[in-house]
């Protein structure tokens, strides 16, 4: 109660934690811009999905940049063109529309980025929550195992996984997810261990709440903040790793377009058409920069030290 009164004294309205977070984030213009850009890429990816995978979408978006024919359709008479009204961002060495390939690549990168981070949050978060709550020997053994994963640079671990299992999409997602599991486990564990000691958990225990209820209803919601920040930054890392793996030929394989393998192709004709590599790379930079700025913004908004 006291806490709430104090809050009421400084800001007239009392907001829930999520509304409070949104309120603070809204004040940060750069973060809002990043959020807007990322939302744009999300929308593009969703349209691309509809345009390629559904029959209605194929009809509606026929002939537009979302048309899969533009992504894979070659035209050897019009290779390495500079931007024109036909091809807004020019063409690549097979005469394929660069914009269409970037759009399709956005969908691939975002899909891999989101699903690999989702996987590592799910696995890492559960491990962290479990060992943080249980503690003792289980904690010790599992965290030592996590140390082993942390001892391998993430790109090397990812390389090892795809070079062994192959680079089919599920394996690629796994290869990018596995190296970040220990990070999520550590963060969740630390958060859970702090929260476990707090009075409201004791209170929940006292009124007879079950362990599962305490973890699900009290501990997980209260330890979300650091996980959200880490997730945002991890999506950036995942997209970079995907691009990196594809660049060295271990990730998404042509003719499917992905930003990393586009750069790998662009490398072959970089002296004759540097624009292609420039624009492809800039697309990656914009997305990653937005994710990093948003991550920073979220951290500032969630940081209790900066409250008030």
């Amino acid at each position, binding site marked *: 109660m006291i806490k709430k009164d104090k809050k009421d004294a400084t800001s007239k309205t009392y907001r829930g934690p999520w509304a409070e977070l949104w309120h603070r984030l809204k004040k940060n213009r750069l973060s809002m811009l990043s959020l807007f850009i990322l939302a744009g890429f999300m929308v593009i990816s969703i349209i691309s999905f509809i345009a390629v995978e559904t029959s209605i979408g194929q009809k509606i978006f026929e002939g537009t940049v979302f048309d899969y024919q533009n992504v894979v359709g070659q035209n050897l008479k019009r290779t390495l063109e500079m931007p024109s009204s036909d091809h807004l961002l020019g063409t690549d060495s097979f005469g394929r529309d660069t914009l269409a390939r970037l759009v399709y690549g956005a969908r691939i990168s975002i899909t891999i980025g989101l699903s690999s981070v989702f996987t590592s949050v799910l696995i890492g978060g559960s491990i962290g929550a479990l060992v943080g709550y249980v503690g003792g020997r289980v904690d010790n053994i599992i965290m030592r195992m996590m*140390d*082993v994963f942390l001892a391998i640079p993430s*790109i090397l671990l990812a390389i*090892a996984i795809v*070079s*062994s299992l192959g680079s089919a999409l599920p394996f690629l997602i796994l290869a990018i997810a596995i190296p970040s599991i220990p990070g999520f486990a550590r963060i969740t564990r630390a958060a859970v261990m702090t929260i476990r000691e707090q009075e409201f958990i004791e209170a929940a225990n006292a009124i007879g709440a079950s362990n599962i209820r305490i973890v699900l209803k009290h501990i997980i919601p209260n330890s979300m903040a650091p996980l959200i920040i880490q997730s945002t930054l991890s999506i950036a890392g995942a997209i970079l790793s995907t691009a990196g793996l594809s660049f060295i030929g271990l990730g998404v394989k042509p003719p499917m377009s992905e930003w990393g393998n586009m*750069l790998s192709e662009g490398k072959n004709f970089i002296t004759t058409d*540097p624009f292609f590599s420039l624009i492809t790379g800039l697309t990656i*930079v914009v997305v*990653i920069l937005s994710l990093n700025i948003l991550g920073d913004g979220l951290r500032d908004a969630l940081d209790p030290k900066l409250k008030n």
Partner: protein
Amino acid sequence: MGSYIFKRVLALVPILIGVSFLVFTIMHLSPGDPASLVLGEQATAEQIAQKREEMGLNDPFLVQYGNYVFKYVQGDFGQSYVSNRDVATEILSRFPNTVTLTIASMIIAIGIAIPTGIIAATKQYSITDNVATVLALLGVSMPNFWLGLMLIIGIAVPVQFIPTGGMKVAYTLFGNIKIPTLGSIILPAITLGTGAAGIIMRMTRSSMLEVVRQDYIRTARAKGVSEKVVIRKHALSNALIPIVTVVGLQFGYLLGGAVLTESVFSWPGVGRYMVDSIKTRDMPVVIAGVIFMASVFTIVNLFVDILYAYIDPRIKAEYKKG
């Protein structure tokens, strides 16, 4: 201190065993049959069966792993499936090149990041600070292989004495440590170092900002100590602890991240050797390469931890007590 170092070195053993086990297991899941890979497509079933026996592939998994580690610690990383050469010799001959590249990029990263971080922190919210912060964020957000490509077309193509790739040797030390020419290392080093520079700069800035707000800094200023001395002696030496950790961690990451940079610039290091080997499915090289680099990474981190104890008197004191 001796007991601290001993304890840390001892803790390294289970990690290294774990790393090798993990990598070996991952590689073991690979669907291909190594024996038929070695013998090629024309091999008969009998030949393959014989080869499998020879290579120990019929042994239980743990026995295979045990044999591998036993050989590994003796410096025998096996033979390449493709060239039949000794993998250990191949990796060790390339390793100095990777280290040279990593050190060069670290020098660039530290040289740019720490001074910029300090300036940004002492002039918080100034234009300099904003520009530096944005540049640092940009450095972190750039795929380093793309930066490499841009540097190649932007600098290496127009500038005569900077090659677009490869390593030109200026001197050779002790037989196999090659010192490259400045022209051939500068672009790969910038490419590899930019991300690290961004991270180190951000850390330096936030760590300095935190220290500058402490009471003892106010005390020093109140005593009339000049601003230069306050920043250099009182603030920096205290802000250095988290910076050293990040630098150490980055050093390890750069060793791993060198894989991509080496591919872009055809740098003759371990990373590029591994990438080439993955393309030819040369598994012994991949396994040995990953285990080797992960071991180096772990050992570098250990050194950082020990260094940390030397810089941070609190850790030293803890170990003196008990």
